[in-house]
């Protein structure tokens, strides 16, 4: 069984505890003497604080303490930004944990109440009096960059002026001669222009954020339970902000109920909770409410994109030129500057041979919730640009969108291909993926059906996406070069116990993806133990080795590689021990399925369990071999991995009401060899649906004064199962040439592809009605209005 465990659809071992409610989340942590914190969020998009009075709240029943920015000022350092984008005039604005003078978005913390119960803490929030002098607010990033817009910050942390709310200006590297490409296309080709709004999205992890902090005054040790995707990074950031040295700081990510990027960042409320625990000498718990989650946990996307494509008259792409205003929100969140730049601009040539490319990205401060990575993080926004433009090019030239793609694809390659943005893609067969998709879905026949015209006022549309994405972040040398304030390797410790049971300690921090299962499968397949004998430990900085966390579809791609290599080290050592026990020479030994045997005589064998026992008791070991059976690896990937695929969405648009129905969806993804296809499909399902959400339903809406209008699930429309067709999920398998297991990543693929596929499908359906663009989300009213306008009524 062991050799077949890689690739088998075993059930997720995480599920029983998740389904039966026995999993322990941050909110479940109870400690003796624990008190509860509640954050007072300002509720103003932009205002000056003129007075705060806390006396009444302090006197309220159960209240232990009330703190404001006056208390934390100088004690808590400003929130650090950890992605220092080079060559981009980066201006980091001061980001206090508790705002003292000016508040810049509705979720800014102005005070914290600590009480004996959470209920009492929330009750007392109402008793804090704060006087504000409202200031003009701006939410739209392009507007915020215009002269005369309200300015959020006067100076950055170095005392340099911030003007025009500009946090940075980044230009994509490499690029060929873009101006020439466009000049030629203007003269004797085609130029397609489009304006794309990638609306703000609210990540909506099932579990909101929270923290529990316990400080031991006698030892100076601090333990922080937190809903984080990356406990080791949080430990580092917590040390910077609170001053507790790293060696006395333990961060535990217990069960974490989803993140989608929103739990990468460190947040002021986490450190305010720590501050309270240190001041009071009592454990403090803070759990975010859902409303607070909408107001204060990072959002995603928020791009205003002006994009242009140059092509020849026969449909060959010659250039791409983009200007993007990326809303950063009120402050730069932990990794924010890297998202609309490195993870976006570098992927702009996608699956195509594009000789010349240029992108200017302006990161802009606005009075919105800070924007961070959100599933796909930069790549959906890049894929959308390309895939929309390719469809528009097809329409302009009267070609089928599939044919334009085929014409421009990078030909199949299996060991590296350098693109115009200087990235070196690892392996891919983009034409192969699309042709398999077209065949599988009967695409040409669907087109025939579409040509029959609308039935019952319902217009059918087909939308394609061909995508390639960058993940498995990434080589640490590159991380350094692009200003990421950390490494991007992963590590694993594999420890065999005397009975042959295995403990694995990893630095990555899965929070719903299922790596406790797939990682056990990796170990089982590499060394022939039963999966049930492998236990995976993660999420506790005291017991697991350093690691950079779970995001960017990197956990299996990087952490999985570290693990496989650690197990291979063990295999090498076990072979030496087995040879010794069998009185054979190491060169004569063979290994298969958990057995070490003398070549040609499979009966002269020792199992890995035999070896584990003998290595642990160490009665007889070969000379120079240490006792125990344990290995540690640090895996720093030589390159990124580049999963890819092709998706098809089929929609029906009711022209009378503007309703869009997604009637069919097929996803073809190539993430290399699949450790557990059920888990891969689960990731694709969730990812696709999140991308469909952006196309059809989701969008954070603010009013003129900067108040979030879609502040709850009553108004913010998340996708639901009954709005979706059965998703047809297929794959191809192209191993990464540089990865020990050949695997790529699949956590974000669905989201990266599906928004553009659905959008393209809707625009395809609306073509006969003369509609060419509608802003997302494609709500019935927006679609209906676009039809009315196009029909001239």
């Amino acid at each position: 069984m062991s050799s077949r465990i890689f690739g088998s659809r075993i059930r997720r071992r995480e599920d029983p505890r998740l389904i039966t409610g026995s999993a322990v989340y941050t909110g479940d942590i109870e400690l003796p003497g624990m008190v509860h914190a509640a954050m007072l969020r300002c509720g103003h998009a932009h205002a000056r604080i003129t007075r705060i009075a806390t006396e009444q709240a302090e006197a309220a029943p159960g209240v232990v303490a009330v703190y404001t920015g006056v208390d934390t000022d100088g004690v808590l350092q400003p929130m650090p930004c950890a992605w220092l984008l080079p060559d981009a005039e980066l201006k980091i604005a001061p980001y206090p944990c508790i705002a003292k003078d000016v508040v810049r978005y509705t979720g800014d913390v102005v005070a914290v109440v600590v009480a004996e119960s959470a209920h009492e803490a929330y009750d007392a929030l109402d008793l804090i009096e704060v006087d504000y002098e409202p200031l003009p607010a701006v939410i739209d990033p392009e507007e915020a960059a215009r002269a005369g817009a309200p300015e959020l910050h006067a100076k950055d942390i170095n005392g340099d002026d911030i003007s025009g709310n500009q946090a940075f200006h980044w230009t994509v590297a490499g690029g060929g001669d873009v101006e020439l490409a466009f000049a030629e296309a203007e003269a004797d080709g085609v130029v397609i222009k489009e304006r794309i709004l990638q609306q703000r999205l609210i990540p909506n992890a099932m579990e909101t954020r929270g923290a529990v902090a316990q400080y031991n005054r006698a030892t100076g040790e601090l333990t922080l339970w937190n809903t984080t995707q990356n406990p080791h990074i949080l430990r580092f950031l917590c040390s910077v902000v609170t001053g507790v040295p790293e060696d006395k700081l333990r961060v535990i990510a217990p069960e974490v109920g989803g993140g989608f990027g929103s739990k990468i960042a460190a947040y002021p409320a986490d450190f305010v909770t720590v501050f309270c625990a240190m001041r009071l000498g009592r454990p403090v718990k803070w759990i975010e409410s859902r409303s607070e989650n909408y107001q204060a946990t990072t959002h995603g996307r928020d791009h205003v994109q002006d994009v242009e494509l140059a092509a020849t008259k026969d449909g060959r792409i010659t250039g791409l030129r983009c200007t993007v205003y990326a809303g950063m929100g009120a402050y730069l969140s932990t990794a924010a500057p890297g998202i609309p730049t490195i993870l976006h601009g570098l992927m702009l040539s996608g699956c195509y041979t594009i000789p010349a490319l240029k992108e200017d990205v302006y990161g802009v401060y606005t009075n919105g919730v800070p924007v961070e990575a959100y599933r796909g993080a930069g790549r959906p926004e890049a894929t959308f640009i390309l895939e929309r433009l390719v469809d528009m090019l097809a329409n302009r030239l009267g070609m089928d969108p599939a044919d334009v793609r085929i014409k421009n694809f990078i030909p199949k390659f299996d060991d590296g291909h350098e693109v115009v943005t200087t990235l070196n893609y690892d392996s891919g067969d983009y034409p192969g993926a699309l042709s398999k998709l077209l065949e599988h879905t009967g695409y040409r026949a669907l087109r025939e059906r579409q040509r029959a015209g609308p039935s019952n006022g319902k217009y059918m549309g087909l939308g394609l996406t061909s995508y390639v994405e960058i993940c498995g972040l990434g080589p640490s040398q590159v991380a350094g070069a692009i200003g990421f304030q950390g490494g991007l390797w992963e590590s694993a410790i594999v420890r065999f116990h005397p009975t042959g049971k295995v403990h694995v300690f990893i630095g990555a921090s899965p929070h719903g993806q299922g790596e406790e299962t797939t990682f056990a499968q990796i170990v089982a397949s590499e060394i022939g133990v039963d999966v049930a004998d492998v236990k995976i430990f993660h999420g506790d900085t005291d017991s697991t080795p350093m690691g950079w966390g779970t995001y960017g579809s990197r956990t299996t791609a990087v952490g999985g590689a570290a693990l496989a290599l650690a197990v291979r080290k063990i295999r090498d050592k076990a072979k030496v021990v087995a040879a010794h026990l069998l009185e054979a020479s190491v060169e004569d030994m063979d290994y298969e399925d958990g057995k070490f045997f003398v070549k040609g005589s499979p009966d002269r064998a020792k199992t890995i369990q035999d070896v584990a026992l003998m290595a642990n008791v160490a009665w007889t070991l070969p000379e120079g071999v240490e006792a125990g059976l344990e290995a540690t690896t640090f895996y720093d990937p030589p390159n990124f991995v580049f999963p890819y695929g092709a998706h098809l969405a089929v929609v029906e648009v009711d022209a009378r009401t503007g309703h869009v129905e997604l009637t069919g969806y097929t996803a073809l993804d190539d993430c290399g060899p699949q450790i557990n296809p059920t888990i891969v499909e689960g990731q694709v399902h969730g990812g696709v649906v999140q991308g469909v959400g952006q196309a059809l339903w989701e969008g954070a809406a603010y009013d003129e004064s900067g108040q979030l209008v879609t502040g709850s699930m009553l108004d913010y429309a998340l996708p639901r199962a009954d709005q979706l067709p059965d998703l047809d999920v297929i794959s191809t398998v192209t191993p990464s040439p540089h990865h020990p297991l050949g695997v790529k990543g699949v956590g974000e693929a669905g989201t990266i592809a599906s928004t553009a596929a659905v959008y393209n499908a809707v625009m395809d359906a609306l073509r006969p009605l003369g509609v060419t663009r509608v802003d997302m989300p494609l709500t019935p009213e927006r679609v209906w209005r676009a039809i009315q306008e196009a029909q001239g009524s």
Partner: protein
Amino acid sequence: MFAADFDYYRAGSVAEAGQLLAQHPGAKLLAGGHSLIPLLKLRLAVPPALIDIGRVAELRDIALEGGGLRIGALATHAEIARSDAVREHAAALAEAAGQIGDPAVRNRGTIGGNVAHADPASDLPAVLVALGATLAVTGQGGERSIDAGDFFTGVMMTSLGEDELLTSVRIPSAAGRGTAYVKFSHPASRYAVIGVAASVALDAGPGESVCTDASVAIGGLVPGPVRCSAVEEALKGRAPSGEALAAAAAAVAQDLGGDLLGDVFASADYRGAVAPVYVERAIAAAAGRATQA
């Protein structure tokens, strides 16, 4: 996130609930809690006391009585949606109840709570108006019966007295008529952006059947359910299909008047403009179910 403090009482019977209501001015009845508890948690409602009627068994029944339906105030949306009696005698109601929110909401939410709460975006008020339901209530002043058409008086306002309890909903049998409910649901809240209930009777003429009587009500985009008499008039004696139906449905503009509701998702203008489509679909669906008398 947390409700303000309140006292909690549990009533064992309708009579006890009535007494508790009289003893605790300002108290709120608690049925399924699916409208009230969100208001409490957001502190949009801060009642001094809750009177839980959730376990009053006598309010749960769904029964056939005198050729019509009597549905206890505590019948849940799920029970109504799957009741054979309701499906047979008031198909529109079963259809509407089955489209409320999601399974969790349907398993807890009650018809009594739904109509007493009178949210303009609720599904059931329009259905009850179209089906000519009456609501049985009891209070200090004794029992009385209110026509659904008179019950809903505005956004979250009804003619129910402070001390009154809704005990049941009575619906005359729609035997022979066809009834249907068609909904444009909000993708986030699942409440009705537009909801149309229709009850249609057809004649058995030799040629194309025509509508002899129609009762149509619309909700979601208006403060309370609106009876569509202009639509009904326009439909009488006409075939409920094609041009005639479209023309009749268009008359809903007269019924709606100018006071329409809208939000960021769907503006009042848009709702008004597409309302005829839903009226048309509801009538067509109802007509399709009518047996020709």
